[in-house]
């Protein structure tokens, strides 16, 4: 389907509005065109000498026309622009819903700012195209055609004379329109250049200061600023000419009509009233001629923006329910046994996981240990299919995760990411984030918070669990954020609990406390814990040591310590660190 047709689909939802709106456009334009006609009669009657009653009639007619025209103009604007706001609303909702279906990889490849600008400024350009642009196109073209016909009916020859400047108007609108567009783009480009220089300076401010580069940076900025100035001058030069030229061309029409028209009146081929009405119609033509150029640019920009939005709409989600079966119908049916079977995963050419095989029996705890970049987080992320594992590599209760519906799969997993993302809402809303309803009973929230050892902190918060966190509320410490994320994962009562280095910002004492409390709840769940602390891994049923995307050691804590490998070395260092912290 062409982009235009896809947009049409959205327009059609409001077809009633558009039909009624167009009827109002017709009414508005016709009523507007009737006034000069009344004026013509009034002037002619005055010229001939009429009775005062007639003027009262003309005055009332003018007022009546204006009132009726006003009502239709009001309706026209309200209905058509209102519909465009409706379309904007539909599009934004659809856009958001589409984003929700896209996979993690997509958000890693695209900058948030870029997606935001498509949902805001691009959408607003599309809105201007389906609203104001449509409305003005309709009114102006209708006014143009009808006014022209009325002018011809008054005096065909004078109409042709009046239209002499028209080709020049069209030509200059086109010429200047394009040139102005080009120069505006160049200016926008230079503005990004200025932003880039500023960004570079701001992020490297230490180097700039240390090397005394301030004058140089200022000079660099000045040079860029000067180019910006020069480019703007080029645009102003055009704009400075464009507007007066339009005035000149329109004025020339008026001049020709007044000069030649009055000669017609003198020659008796035209009445004074007709001349006045003709002038009035000519004034009505001026606006459509200018508006066409403006509307064209609205449509061009709108289409460009719409295509940018379609790029997002056309990206299919990589993680879907396409292969889902009913092998596991709902969350309650999950026991929690996990198996990785020869799992190899690559991002592009970069292989991050090599032939990982492991079985995690239901209800056991597995710790994953390894250095930065060893693939620990990636291994966890395939389980809820944040990254899609290849078919036949990751199983829950013997069923390929790709065969489990996403809602069921993710509903069974309580995931605590490495850098927990909390939302700008109250603490209880954050903890109850995974609930299908906003939190009503405080028990669930509070018991989850207690296990995560957040309860003591909450007592100091101004509004307890109703305290808003984030930019508009209080700022949580790194450890508090992690503990909130743990509470959030526990609150969904998951069958499988995944902690991705979730206690790194928590002190050792608190960590042990949390682990002790977690032990109670972990007994009924399968747990996967990534940690850089041996103390966390120590109690696990099995420990997997990852290095370079491979499992290099596996076993229990005691096994691995005696083996004198990577794990044992890690263990030794940890003890040293503890000693250091104590000194």
């Amino acid at each position, binding site marked *: 389907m062409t982009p235009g047709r896809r947009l049409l689909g959205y327009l059609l939802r409001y077809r009633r509005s558009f039909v009624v709106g167009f009827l109002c456009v017709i009414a508005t334009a016709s009523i507007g065109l009737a006034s000069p006609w009344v004026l013509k009669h009034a002037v002619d009657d005055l010229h001939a000498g009429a009775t005062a009653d007639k003027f009262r009639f003309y005055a009332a007619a003018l007022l009546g026309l204006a009132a009726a025209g006003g009502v239709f103009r009001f309706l026209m604007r309200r209905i058509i622009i209102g519909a465009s706001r409706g379309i904007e609303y539909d599009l934004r909702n659809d856009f958001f819903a589409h984003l929700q279906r896209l996979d993690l990889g997509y958000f890693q490849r695209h900058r948030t700012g870029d997606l935001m600008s498509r949902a805001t400024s691009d959408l607003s350009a599309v809105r201007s195209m389906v609203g104001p642009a449509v409305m003005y196109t309709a009114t102006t073209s209708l006014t143009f055609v009808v006014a022209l016909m009325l002018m011809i009916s008054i005096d065909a020859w004078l109409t042709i004379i009046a239209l002499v400047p028209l080709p020049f108007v069209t030509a200059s609108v086109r010429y200047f329109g394009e040139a102005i567009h080009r120069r505006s783009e160049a200016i926008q480009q230079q503005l990004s250049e200025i932003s880039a220089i500023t960004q570079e300076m701001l992020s490297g401010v230490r180097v700039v200061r240390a090397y005394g580069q301030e004058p140089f940076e200022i000079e660099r900025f000045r040079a860029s600023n*000067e180019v910006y100035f020069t480019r703007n001058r080029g645009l102003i030069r055009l704009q400075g000419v464009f507007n007066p030229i339009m005035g000149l061309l329109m004025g020339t029409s008026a001049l020709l009509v007044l000069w030649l028209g009055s000669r017609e009146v003198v020659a008796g081929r035209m009445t004074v009233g007709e001349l006045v009405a003709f002038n009035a119609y000519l004034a009505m033509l001026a606006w459509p001629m200018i508006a066409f150029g403006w509307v064209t640019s609205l449509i061009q920009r709108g289409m460009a923006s719409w295509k940018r939005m379609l790029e997002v709409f056309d990206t299919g989600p990589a993680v879907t329910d396409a292969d889902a079966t009913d092998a596991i119908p709902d969350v309650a049916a999950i026991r929690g046994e996990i198996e990785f079977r020869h799992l190899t995963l690559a991002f592009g050419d970069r292989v991050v996981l090599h032939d990982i095989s492991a079985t995690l029996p239901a209800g056991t705890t597995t710790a994953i240990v390894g250095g930065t970049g060893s693939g620990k987080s990636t291994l966890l992320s395939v389980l809820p299919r944040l990254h899609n594992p290849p078919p036949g590599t990751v199983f829950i209760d013997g069923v390929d995760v790709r065969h489990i519906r996403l809602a069921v799969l993710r509903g069974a997993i309580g995931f605590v*990411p490495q850098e927990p993302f909390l939302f700008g809402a109250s603490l209880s809303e954050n903890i109850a984030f995974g609930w299908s309803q906003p939190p009503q009973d405080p028990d669930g929230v509070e018991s989850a918070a207690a296990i995560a050892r957040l309860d003591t902190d909450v007592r100091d918060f101004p509004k307890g669990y109703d305290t808003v966190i984030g930019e508009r509320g209080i700022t949580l410490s790194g450890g508090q954020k992690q503990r909130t994320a743990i509470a959030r994962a526990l609150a969904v009562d998951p069958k499988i609990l995944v902690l991705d280095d979730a206690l790194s910002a928590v002190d050792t004492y608190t960590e042990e406390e949390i682990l002790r409390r977690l032990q109670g709840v972990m007994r009924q769940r399968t747990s996967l814990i990534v940690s850089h602390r041996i103390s966390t891994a120590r109690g696990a049923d099995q420990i997997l040591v990852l290095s370079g995307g491979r499992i290099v050691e596996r076993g229990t804590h005691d096994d691995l310590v005696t083996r004198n490998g990577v794990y044992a070395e890690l263990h030794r260092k940890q003890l040293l660190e503890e000693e250091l912290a104590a000194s």
Partner: protein
Amino acid sequence: MHDEEVLGKAYDARLMRRLLEYLRPYRRQVGVAIAAIIGHSIFELAPPYLTKLVIDEYIPAGDLSGLGAVAVLFLVTLAGSFALEYVQTWTMQMTGQRIMFDLRMQVYRHLQRLDLRYYDRNPVGRLMTRVTTDVDVLNELFTSGVVSVFGDVFTLVGIMGVLIWLDWRLALIAFSVLPLIALITQWFRRHVRDSYRTVRTWIARINAYLQERITGMATVQLFRREARDFVEFDAIDRRHRDANVDSIFYYAVFYPAIELVSALAVALIIWIGGGWVLENTLTLGSLVAFIMYAQRFFRPIQDMSEKFNVLQGAMASSERIFALLDTPVEIVSGGSAPRNVDAASRNPPYVRRPGPSGSGDSPAAGPGAIAFENVTFAYVEGEPVLKDVSFRVEPGQRVALVGATGSGKTTIVNLLLRFYDVQQGRITIDGVDIRQMDLRELRSCVGLVLQDVHLFSGTIAGNIRLGNEDISDEAVRRAAEAVHAAGFIDRLPQGMATPVAERGATLSVGQKQLLSFARALAFDPRVLILDEATSSVDTETELLIRDALKVVMHGRTTIAIAHRLSTIQDMDRILVLHKGRLRESGTHQELLAQRGIYHRLYELQFQDRSAA
């Protein structure tokens, strides 16, 4: 994001006065623009009057040559109008651009001087908005706002004058609708302002929600929040739509209402004026001219009402810009050498390093002895990161700072370069308190090599000499060769002239390190500060770096935050920082023998790397 959206009042006398200050240097241009606007308004008044002349004088007389004369007169006003409009647009827009240029430079210069504390508090994105968007919003105020309001006012006054001159009785009748206009405009302005605010609030909510959900999409999906989030988003989106529909209402009422009043004026003119025409106390031409003027009368009123939002946005932007410009700079050059960046920037070329003939206490000329005396410092009040730290580094001595993360190593570097000022105690270079020195001289005698190498856009050579034109191509070359960077540079397609991609994306970590060594060497500082990178590089590069470091440190007082065992072993002395205090000091061997903190740190941080 949120503070960007707050809208203050539309007119603030204090802000306005300060803004008008920027117009002062351009008062001639502003004068010309205003004169042009007045002239233009006068010319625009001509056509209805010419029409009157035609209808009253020349048509009844059948005077064709008179009609020709009117046409010529018409042509003259058209030409005059054309010229004056051009003059006005050109002078005013150019003045606007010049002011924006000045303002941008002013903001940027101030950013160069602001304390790093300010940078800690304000994210880069926010500061960028000041330099770009906020300044541009102000531009609109100068170009389309202030000046065209002048034009509108003159057109209004002009039309009123002509009407009174033509026929004062009919003029009074036409003016009788003005109170209605005032009421409608008042009503419109009040509601549009409120609904504009409401719309901005909801747009801000949409942006905030989108930003948050896009950033946290993984969490949303993990917790199956899609449906609930959609409901939440839909509610905000709907409120935004409704707020917009409300504002359409005001616009939809306003335009037809003004037009209705205009029609009322025309109807009154025809009704009453028509009677006078019949009584021969008014000419037909005057009546027609009246009708034409009445229709032109309402356009400027509409225009002015629409300027309101421009004014409001500009006030908000200027408030933010002025807040930045008013932020005081605390870290400035000491009294002995009052010089500042502003003055220097106007005098290129930028001779940065004073010659050896500098004054006696000039640090650049001194041998480079550094002393910390009982230094205490906190970024956040009540949480000191350095506590009573004292040490001396003799000229030419090489010292390593060692400690766990958060022990205060980087802070020492920050204080020595006066990115921050000490809160207690003092730091001296060659016996002079660094707070007494000229900032530029202080920093010119110190070379900084940071672990996160910051590359600027430009060429490889440009990244070595930075803005210092005194460093010749040859010197750049020598520096690159000395630190073994020449090897990889020569393999690049354009050698030294190869452009560096955004933040050096095409260079490896090791190559960037070597470049930063070349940079430090080219600047030839007395004191070298090195914050060594922790990231690992391949063995070959490791050896190159190790060798290059020796070259750079040669003959300089060096303070290094070291992460490589090789670097540590090359040092004359090692200072061990622990929890903000200086705990141990000595050579590598001495400290190892102590079996204290250093011993443990050594095993933790360095032993691995020695094996590699």
